């Protein structure tokens, strides 16, 4: 039985909701496997002869994961929920998958287990607002306009 240890969170998993969803899938898969195994044990004829790992697991972890890793994976994911920092990004529109992955990669380069929440707020016009557990860094265009509204003095006279 090989030991399973997460080196980083899969890129496809960015936020806490996805982790909870993954844990739910793991529970379902384990439960299903136990049911099949129990049925086989008592001699019930089951249609399932070979139990495959859920596709989602394959998608996230490719071939590096096996059935016996699921319990440890669940513990790892629960630990990530309780200990990993969360960065909330506010953008002016829904990001493309490319942009989303680029942002996640940029943040995971700092901490491979960081969770990323993306919120869309069109009123910021452009740029972004970065919010961590301790800070809020406003890099939005609307704030930029408000901060530099003094530079707008005299604009009206030219209108």
């Amino acid at each position, binding site marked *: 039985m090989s030991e399973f240890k997460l080196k980083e969170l899969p890129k496809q998993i960015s936020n806490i909701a996805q982790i909870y969803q993954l844990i739910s899938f793991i529970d379902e898969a384990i439960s299903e496997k136990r049911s099949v195994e129990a049925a086989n044990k008592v001699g019930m004829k089951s249609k399932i002869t070979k139990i495959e790992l859920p596709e989602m697991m394959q998608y996230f972890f490719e071939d590096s994961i096996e059935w016996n890793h699921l319990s440890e994976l669940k513990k790892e994911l629960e630990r990530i929920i309780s200990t990993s920092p969360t960065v909330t990004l506010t953008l002016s529109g829904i990001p493309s998958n490319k942009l989303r992955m680029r942002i996640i990669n940029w943040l995971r380069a700092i901490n491979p287990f960081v969770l990323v929440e993306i919120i869309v707020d069109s009123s910021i016009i452009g740029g972004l607002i970065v919010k961590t557990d301790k800070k809020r860094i406003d890099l939005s265009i609307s704030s930029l306009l408000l901060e530099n509204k003094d530079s*707008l003095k005299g604009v009206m006279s030219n209108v």
Partner: protein
Amino acid sequence: MFNLSQSTSSNIKQWIITLLIVFIIFVLVLMLTVKDDSKANKARRNSKNKQMNIDPIDLQKASEEALSKATDQMISKYKVQFDSQLKMNMLQLDQTFRNSLESITKEFKESLDDFRVKSQKIAEETQSKMLSVSEAVDKSTQAAIDLKKSQMVEKVENRINNILVSYLNNSLEGTIDLNDQEDYIFEKLEQNKSAILEDIKNVRI
């Protein structure tokens, strides 16, 4: 011996008695002499009065008159003295009064002058203070007016700026494509990397 002393004692007694008798006789003689002498004096006075033909009653009247005259003389003498003393006192009193009046007048004048000087000084000081207060009030009022003016101007400018920003927000909202912002977003992230890193780097699983 005894006999001798007894005889001596009786002798002494006899001598004492004799001396007493002599003494008594002397006293009687003396009394008689004094009585005779007073009688003689009285007789002598009567005889003298009789010689001057003065009646005792007249004498008494005369003495009373003399006494009355002497009293009158004394009264008139003291009256003159009293009058002169009174005059002198009146003069002194008048002088004292004049002196006092002069002194009081002088003091009053000095006080009045002093009061006038002080009043003038107080008036000048009050005027000076009023001037300075007036200047301060003018300055304060001007400052308040200036402040109010600048606040109003600032308020108007802020309102105009807010309207402008709001207008820009409404106009630009949703018009800038997020993909076009990619470079700007990563530029800003890189600029603030240290601040972001500080919060998320230390947490390890």
